[in-house]
Structure formats: structure tokens, C-alpha cells
């Protein structure tokens, strides 16, 4: 029997992660796909986004022509400030991160282990200098760390592993993983599949995942709205 399923595209993954951001939550979004989640917070929910470079209350991208050269986000893209937003210096921005003041940090990753170890800062390419940015601060800091990443690498190999192969960003920090195939919780009892895309089976998902997966009793289908890829 052939399993037929359709992986989420990047906007659908961002949409799914955004649904879990609660009213009143203070959230840091990592550079790249996590940043897209800001666009998909359900209407009417106030979620306050934090940026490492000293902004609390990030708004949407500015309209073309209205960019302010002194207002950029951690990805160094132009951004805006919403009402109630404030500026602070770098040490205070990281005090917020490291001191467990943020409710959620949503990060990209290369690999996550069964124990919630996170590897997202270096692929150890010897021809380039390493860069860590705020990755390690974010990984130890927020009250809850969630990861958003493709379920497998470009060769189809698992990125959810028994142990990370790449150097760690921080051990045991990840609580939830959003992939293009599933939503998986990291618990002391192991990895629990909370949601899978339609057509996916636990058996097929397990083939794409190194550590043992368990299906949550109340698992459900992962069915985001259709979105242009």
C-alpha cells in the first residue's frame, strides 16, 4: 500500500505554529521561517513580538516606500512598531531572553533529539567562519522553546534524531516541533505525535524519524488552509 500525503509548505508550517501563540504571549521568532508565523496569528489575538536588537512590539513589514532605515528586526529586514511597542538596548533585550521573561521562542533548527536537544547554529562547514548570533541565548532563555523545521533534510534523512550529530545549541530545551508533516511534543515519556498531515500514518512518519514516535490518544489531522507555496 502506498501512503499518499502532501507535506505542508512553509507558509502552512508558519500558520500552524502561529495558532499556538496565545493572547498576551510575548514571543521571539527566529530568523527565517519562524518570522513568517507573525503573519498568521488569528485575528483579534494580541501577541507581542520581541526582537533581539531591542524591540518589543514588532509589527508587520512596512509598506513599500515607508521603510525607516533605523527600524530593522533581528534578521536585518525593515520592520515596524505597533502601538504599545518599545525600544531597549541589547543587554536589556537579552535580559528578557535569558531571564525567562518571554513565553515562547520559536526557532528554526537543523536537528532536534529525542531529549529535546537542539542543534541550530552550525553545520561545521570548515570553509566558513562559525556564527552563533543569539541562538544559544534564545535556546536557554524562553519559558518554552518550540522548533519549526522540515521533517527531513534535502536527502530525505531524518532531522529528528536519537542524538544530534551537529554541535548542540543547548541540551533538552525543545518542547514542541512543527514540521511539514506533523506536530510533535517532546516529553519525559518520549516523542508524542499530536498532529499529522492527512494521509500520513504513524508507520510512515516513523520511517522518517529516528527515535520512537508515539501517537497521542487525542491526535488529530494537521489541516491548515490552502496557501500559495
Amino acid at each position, binding site marked *: 500500500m502506498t501512503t499518499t500525503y502532501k507535506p505542508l509548505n512553509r507558509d502552512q508550517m508558519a500558520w500552524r505554529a502561529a495558532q499556538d501563540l496565545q*493572547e*498576551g504571549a*510575548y514571543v521571539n521568532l527566529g530568523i527565517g521561517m519562524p518570522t513568517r508565523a507573525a503573519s498568521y496569528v488569528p485575528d483579534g489575538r*494580541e501577541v*507581542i513580538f*520581541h526582537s533581539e536588537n531591542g524591540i*518589543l*512590539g514588532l509589527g508587520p513589514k512596512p509598506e513599500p516606500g515607508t521603510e525607516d532605515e533605523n527600524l530593522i528586526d533581528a534578521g536585518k529586514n525593515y520592520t515596524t*512598531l505597533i*502601538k*504599545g*511597542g*518599545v*525600544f*531597549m538596548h541589547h*543587554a536589556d533585550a*537579552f*535580559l*528578557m*531572553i*535569558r*531571564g*525567562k*521573561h*518571554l513565553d515562547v521562542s520559536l526557532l528554526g533548527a537543523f536537528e532536534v533529539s529525542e531529549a529535546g536537544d537542539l542543534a541550530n547554529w552550525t553545520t561545521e562547514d570548515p570553509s566558513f567562519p562559525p556564527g552563533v548570533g543569539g541562538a544559544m541565548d534564545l535556546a*536557554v*532563555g524562553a519559558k518554552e522553546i518550540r522548533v519549526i523545521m522540515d521533517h527531513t533534510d534535502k536527502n530525505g534523512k531524518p532531522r529528528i534524531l536519537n542524538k544530534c550529530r551537529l554541535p548542540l545549541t543547548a541540551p533538552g530545551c525543545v518542547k514542541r516541533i512543527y514540521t511539514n508533516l506533523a506536530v510533535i511534543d517532546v516529553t519525559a515519556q518520549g516523542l508524542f505525535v499530536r498532529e499529522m498531515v492527512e494521509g500520513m500514518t504513524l508507520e510512515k512518519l516513523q520511517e522518517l524519524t529516528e527515535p520512537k514516535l508515539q501517537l497521542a490518544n487525542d491526535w488529530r489531522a494537521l489541516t491548515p488552509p490552502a496557501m500559495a507555496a
Partner: protein
Amino acid sequence: MIDKRVAGPAEAVAGVKDGATVLVAGFGTVGIADDLLEALHEQGATNLTIVHNNAGNGDVGLARLINSGRVAKVICSYPRSGDYSAFLNAYRNKTLELELVPQGIISERMHAHAAGLGGFFSPVTAHTKLAEGKETREIDGVLHVFEKPLKGDVALLRAMKADRWGNLIYNQSARNFNPIMAMAADLSIVQVDEMVELGSMDPEAVVTPSIFIDRILVVGATS
């Protein structure tokens, strides 16, 4: 819609537990959340550890909590300020423990907790009685003392203005310990004189960003 305002004093301090560490902002009689302290008295939590620069004045606020036997320990830099008879009686009767900490070290220990640090070395108190029993280390030829982070279960704060998210600005020297205590407690409760519209504060001039504030009690300009 986020709105951190509470209905009244009782709701403001609801849930403070016996044995809690309470950060009480203020310096002298300035920048103290008098209404929240009174509400805490009503609320009934006991066996409290209080972190404050001084140790209460007269028979109101912190002094009243002490007189009612609700304070087990005071962490402060200078108990002998104003009419500190409430503290003095309890201290002489040995019903209250005093941990004396230099004023700047109280602040920095709260900063360390706020910033997620495990402690720091400081040259303050080195070679003095206040360093007795503490770990020391020579760093660049200067003796340093290891100081642990100081965390509040609750902070009782006083600000001039808030918006519904909890962004705060203060009134001159009434700022004092308020911003640092706001950052150092699990539950930060602020008494404010005035509410303003979200977006009406200058985003460059907010002193305490809303992330540090959990509950707002509006007392009005008459307080």
C-alpha cells in the same frame, strides 16, 4: 484584548502565598506601593521575606505587616530610617531575621536573577564582616565576593502611568527600585496613578516594558 488591570486591591494581591519573598520597591517614603502593601495585609499571607531598601516606617505598609507578625525576614541595606520602631521591636524580640546587604548589591542581585544569571563576583564587602562565610575569589588582583541572584515571588511596585499592556513610566526619584524589582519577580504587581491609552507613551521613553508586568491596580491621582 490584553488588559492587565485588576478590579481592586484584593484581586491585585490574590494568590500571594505564605512564605513568599516579596520585593517592595521604594526608597524612604517615595515610590512605595502603599495600597498594595495594605492589600497584602488584608490578604493575610504570612511568614514573608521582604526585600526592601529600608525596613518600614510608622505603622503603615511594611511596618504594619511587621507589627502584625507577618514578616519572618527582611533583606535590606538600611533598617534605621524614619520611624522604624516596628522593625526594631521585632528585631529585639528576635521574631524577625535581618539579612543586611549593601544597597547596590541588593539591586545587582535582582538584576542577576532578572537576566537569568547564576550569580556574580563583586568587590563590594570584600575584606569586611559582610563577606564572612561567603565564597571569595581574587580576580585581577582584587578580592571579590560571590553574590547569588535574588528572586521575588512577588513584586509590589509603584508607577506614575501605565497602559493596558503594563508599560510603565515613573515620577522622578520615585523610579528607584521599581524597574529592577519589576524584572526580578515571578508576579509583578503595580499600583499606578494614571492609565493612558496604548500607544500614547513615547516608545523611546518607556522605562519598564510591559513584559515585566502582570497586574495593574489603578489608584488614581489622589493617592
